[in-house]
């Protein structure tokens, strides 16, 4: 079935109508992923989690902000509250669904922005070499001197809490490692003969980077970024837990964990729900990132 589809795709490219089917790099990646059930499973789970967060308004059985003094800390399944209620009597499942929106946003957005900025800096530094590279990389080393959690807390703390500041802090934390990955990959690629051959055509550095460097650097950058997402979710939860990220009454997995912590002796199960959500989502990102690495990082 896929054979036929791929062939049809090739014939659409009129020039190669007679050519035998030649597999592109990305076709091979998709093929290898299709033969990796673990990655597929976690990928599907991840998709479900994202979909659930996006569709929270339609899926949530209750209003996530509606409190009820008599409904405090009820167990699983109590009067339609599938996952019970929190310390203010709000429906836990609804809050979990809504919380996923902020948690995923804080997991993904800082990594995307940091990849763009750090990746650009790394490629420029790696390709330019010399003083430009030294200037960029030594600046990054300054940030590296602090543990990432401490740095995020420090930045977020000095700017005050809130979602925006939290994401800004996380972005700043992720730029140095992204930059270093991109720089390493660029330096590796730069020393190969095909870059020299491209330079020998008289192409400008920008053209060489665009056509010959980026394609070979994006792979490692992308793989590393996908593994950073889980770290970002954990850090964002940590910030919220410390009261620096999301503010109540907004729902966020980290914040929920922080507030429910006090109820752990009364009703341990409710506390487990946001913790499990963080754990499962991080696992999904890690497993998918591992699978992608295996599928993409082949020796050509």
């Amino acid at each position, binding site marked *: 079935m896929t054979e036929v589809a791929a062939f049809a795709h090739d014939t659409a490219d009129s020039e190669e109508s007679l*050519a035998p089917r030649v597999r592109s790099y990305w076709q091979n990646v998709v093929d290898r992923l299709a033969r990796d059930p673990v990655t597929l499973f976690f990928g599907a789970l991840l998709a479900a989690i994202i979909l659930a967060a996006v569709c929270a308004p339609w899926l949530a059985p209750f209003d996530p902000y509606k409190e009820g003094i008599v409904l405090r800390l009820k167990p699983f399944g109590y009067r339609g509250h599938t996952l019970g209620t929190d310390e203010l009597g709000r429906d836990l499942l609804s809050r979990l669904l809504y919380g996923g929106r902020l948690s995923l946003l804080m997991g993904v957005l800082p990594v995307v922005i940091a990849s763009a900025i750090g990746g650009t800096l790394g490629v420029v530094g790696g390709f330019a070499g010399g003083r430009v590279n030294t200037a960029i990389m030594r600046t990054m080393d300054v940030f590296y001197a602090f543990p990432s959690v401490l740095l995020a807390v420090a930045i977020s703390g000095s700017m005050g809490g809130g979602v925006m500041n939290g994401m800004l802090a996380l972005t700043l934390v992720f730029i140095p490692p992204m930059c270093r990955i991109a720089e390493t990959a660029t330096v590796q690629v730069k020393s190969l*003969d095909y870059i*020299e*051959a491209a330079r020998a*055509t*008289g*192409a400008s550095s920008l053209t060489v980077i665009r*056509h010959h460097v980026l394609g070979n650097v994006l792979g490692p950058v992308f793989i590393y970024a996908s593994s950073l997402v889980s770290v970002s979710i954990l850090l964002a939860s940590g910030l919220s837990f410390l009261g620096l990220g999301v503010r109540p009454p907004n729902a966020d997995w980290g914040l929920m964990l922080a507030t429910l912590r006090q109820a752990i002796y009364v009703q341990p199960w409710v506390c487990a729900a946001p913790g499990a959500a963080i754990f499962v989502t991080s696992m999904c990102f890690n497993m998918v990132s591992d699978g992608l690495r295996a599928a993409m990082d082949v020796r*050509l």
Partner: protein
Amino acid sequence: MTQATPAPDPRDRGGLKQPMLIAQNLRKHFAVKGAKGKSVQAVDGVSFTVRKGETLGIVGESGCGKSTLARLLLHLVVPDDGELVFDGDKVGAPDGIPVNTLRRQVQMVFQDSHSSLNPRMPIRDSVAFGPFVQGKPKTEARQIARDILGKVGLSADLFGPRYPHELSGGQKQRVNIARALAMGPRMVILDEAVSALDKSVGAQVLNLLRGLKRQLNLTYVFISHDLNVVQYVSDRVLVMYLGRVVELGPVDAIFERPRHPYTQALLGARPSMDPTQRIEEPPITGDPPNPIDPPSGCRFHTRCPFAEAVCATKDPVLGAVTGSAAHIAACHLQDPASGHSRAGQRSVA
């Protein structure tokens, strides 16, 4: 290879008499990290000319500066000193031609056929990249790539959309040749272009290069450590030792009447096809000296069987050998006024 009859090329400015490329006193020393003031003298004052339509072979041991020299000729490595004159125009000078113009007319084929192709790019795009950079529209660049791929014996339909890892070594080297030729160069530098291929594939590629030279009226600089291959393709041969030219002359003169002891030793080290002609003893002993700290005087004197005191103190100059103006060697034995006891004798080998 025989001298090709040059068809009129609109870019040919100096005529047949004007050499394609004149390298004058090229020098490149690489600084050694951690050792202040020390440098690897990769290429140290190399001068030669490349005539239009010829194949100039460059031979020498590993590490003698052949590849650095090739990169200097394209300004991929910027020389510390010396100049290049391409078809009468000084490269990089205000009244000459810019480096980019040089690169459009001189292209290079690298030794490692694999690492010189972008692994994430179909080969037709790799070949079309040069014309595309020159400002040709994408469709035209692709058409050029198709034509050139056909010329190097690869069907554009069959191989164009493939990636380098799907090709064999010989096929990849053909793609590299196509990539160089897509720029429409007048001169091609072949840096160990067939050394990494096995003998039969290498021979096919050599014959392909020979045909292309005739067809496209090219000039070759052929760099190799394989003397048999150099003898087969070259019109003239340049012998390098530790960053310097030790001998330069017509291919027959170099291979039949080598004058420099180093050239004699290199030729003597070739395995003979005739089992009765056995090599009695190794002609050169030891490794080449460290190019960071090359020997004084003649750089070969530490390994030369004819070395005398004068060789360690006085630097020999490249001079015409007796009987042939086109054949030059840098050896005190060739200069009767050098002070070497056996200087000026007809044959020393």
